[in-house]
């Protein structure tokens, strides 16, 4: 697993994958999808897929896949080596969603939530696999949100595939376990090898951030100690998590965005306002040309 594209620029998301085994272009295949690092307030979220011929189910079981969360890091690394070693038979792809990309998406003006982001990433990975010539037939997905709705959405996009969306898919289907291992290994490596671009000119950043889960006291302590009054946090932090934004509300300087009070401005004016005298003399009003450009005549500097 070569993460150097992501390590070169960890502000952007990135897709990394194995070669497509020839056998998967001929024989009908199954594909599993799982994610790692959804809950943490730190680091990337990783989507992983793994695929192999349907005829290889027994070989897959023999490799000893299980839910990546029940395995130790060492066991996961070993299993990933087994996946990589079975390159003539199974292929994998991971999509690393940079923490900055997650923050950007979730804090967009038109709201784009984490579930939609997850769904779109999964759809992108299925499409990519189809485009690479893999003869996909069955797809198994660990659910994000409501399983039935998610399954209907995927079936609507890929009507020719046999799609199963279910909770705990990684424990039920070995191909999903394999995908979860790819995702988790990539997430662990990305977090471990994280380059803080903020670390320059004597600005040092502690690596004692704990598990990254909002409930971890070490993570909370690290977040609180990391606050830069103007910029907030390093981009390793997901600003869109309430754990992070609450700390900024307390410890960083307030920042007001133009769109934050848009709702108030757009509100329908009270009916009484049509009868009341207007506060401004229309003759005193600047021409529209100046209003649109926010140009004002001034005689003093602001305080």
């Amino acid at each position, binding site marked *: 697993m070569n993460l150097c594209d992501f390590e070169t620029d960890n502000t952007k998301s990135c897709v990394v994958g194995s070669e497509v085994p020839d056998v998967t272009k001929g024989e009908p295949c199954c594909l599993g999808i799982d994610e790692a690092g959804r809950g943490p307030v730190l680091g990337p979220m990783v989507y992983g897929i793994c695929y192999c011929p349907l005829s290889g189910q027994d070989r897959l079981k023999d490799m000893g896949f299980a839910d990546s969360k029940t395995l130790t890091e060492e066991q996961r690394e070993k299993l990933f080596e087994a996946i990589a070693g079975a390159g003539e038979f199974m292929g994998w792809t991971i999509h690393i969603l940079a923490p*900055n990309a997650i*923050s950007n998406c979730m804090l*967009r003006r038109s709201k784009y939530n984490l579930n939609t982001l997850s769904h779109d990433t999964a759809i992108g990975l299925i499409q990519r696999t189809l485009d690479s010539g893999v003869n996909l037939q069955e797809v198994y997905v660990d659910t994000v949100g409501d399983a039935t709705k998610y399954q209907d959405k995927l079936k609507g996009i890929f009507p020719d595939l046999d799609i199963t969306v279910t909770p705990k898919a990684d424990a039920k289907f070995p191909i999903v376990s394999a995908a979860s291992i790819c995702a988790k290994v990539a997430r662990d490596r990305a977090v471990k090898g994280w380059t803080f671009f903020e670390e*320059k*000119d004597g600005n040092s950043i502690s690596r004692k951030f704990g598990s990254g889960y909002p409930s971890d006291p070490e993570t909370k302590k690290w977040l609180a100690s990391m606050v*830069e009054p103007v*910029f907030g946090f390093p981009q390793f932090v997901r*600003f869109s998590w309430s754990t992070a934004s609450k700390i900024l509300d307390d410890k960083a300087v307030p920042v007001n965005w133009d769109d934050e009070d848009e709702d108030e401005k757009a509100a329908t004016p009270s009916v009484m306002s049509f009868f009341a005298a207007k506060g401004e003399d229309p003759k005193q009003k600047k021409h529209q040309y100046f209003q649109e450009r926010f140009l004002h005549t001034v005689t003093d500097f602001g305080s």
Partner: protein
Amino acid sequence: MSVEVDLSGVNGETAPPKLHLLPCEIEHTGPAQVAQYFTPSIRDNGQGVLQASFRGRELRGGTVSLPDGYTGLVLKEKHKAVSDEEARVFHAGQKFQEFTYWNMETPPSRNDALQKAMHWLDISKAIHAPVDRNISQNGSHTRVKLEDSSP
């Protein structure tokens, strides 16, 4: 109350400051770790559009050059005037000829208020320039040629 601008400290020798105009109000006046937290996050998409993030929000930006004949100055008011009679004194430090302005999510365009506002300088110059009397006495319309200086 009078206002004085002290130009004695203007230094043309030092590297020009890198200025960013953000689409938000930061309730802070003073130093910030721009070189550590902001500058390294800026990416160029190759088509003149810059991308960066501030507090997790996506910014798209571009560089604006000041028109010919204009110089930008960074002013600092070292001491606040205590009474209305006292003059406010601003010290000019560094000069600049360009700055980066940032929009929320949308790439910079000629419809942005800032780019449109810069045109006012040309228009203002044209409409305030002396009119050639001979032409107006001939009864023909005075024409003012406006040149759009934006790229």
